[in-house]
């Protein structure tokens, strides 16, 4: 199945929770925020929110800036 991840097409083998998606991407869940289909999801729901076919996911973190 395909999702849009940070603006790019991304292939996933099956629907999975946000926490599983982060693990698959090797991203530390403590340092990111996630937007799921344009809604910011709370950290405590990373375990229950499920990424489905066609979903739009944005994962952001802190980077250098002024």
């Amino acid at each position, binding site marked *: 199945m395909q999702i849009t*991840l940070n*603006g790019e097409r991304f292939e996933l083998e099956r629907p999975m929770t946000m926490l599983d998606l982060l693990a698959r991407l090797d991203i530390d869940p403590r340092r990111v925020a996630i*937007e799921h289909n344009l809604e910011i999801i709370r950290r405590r729901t990373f375990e229950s929110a499920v990424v489905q076919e066609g979903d739009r996911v944005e994962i*952001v973190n*802190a980077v250098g800036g002024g």
Partner: protein
Amino acid sequence: MDTPFVIAGRTFRSRLIVGTGKYSSHTVMRQAHEASGADMVTVAVRRVNISDRSRESLLDYIDEKRIFLLPNTAGCYTADEAIRTAKLGREAGLGDWVKLEEIGDERTLFPDNEALIEATRALVKDGFVVLPYTNDDPIACRKLEEAGASAVMPLGAPIGSGLGIQNANNIRIIREFSKVPVIVDAGVGTASDAALAMELGADGVLMNTAIAGAGQPVQMAESMRHAVIAGRLAYLSGRIPRKMYATASSPVEGMVGR
């Protein structure tokens, strides 16, 4: 005697706030932060790099026990975009303070006052401590304060320009108008620019490129630390008035042979 530097009830040791962008490495950034003495640094909120996970996290190089994080909304052009970015930053664990940027023009990166005031109001309502980056316009600053801003951050000159304080008198007027702290944000090129900002009465100075882009960033960070302290002390000391002609410093009586 100086009063403490307090924003929204939080006291900072240093009146210098520095950025985390444009450094040649995270290590140089950390050394520059140490040399600057700053206890607040700005960060941007951006998409995680999915394809290259090898890069270390910026936050691994910031001692959050000692340094307070101020996420920004850099690059946002509308109130909605900035509000979205601020909320993402908060959810990413960066806290509920935000350096609010609303860019109105790509070439100058000058702020869009209207969007800035709108976003300030909305974010304050949502519980954020909002520090808007604004034009050096006393009226805009007054409106931002009325909208609930916890400080106003007028620019000295365009971001990254290094031109120094372009409208010194406006900074002075803004200081006089404002009940919240005034932080000169952007435009500093070298130490004297930072000192001047403080001499004009600014409560703090925020800079990124002046340090990160310097030939020797760590040394420049140290010079900025001294400049901000020197400028602040000079402001508090009451400078002498400017006069057209000389006034001798040594006694005019008792000259030998007269």
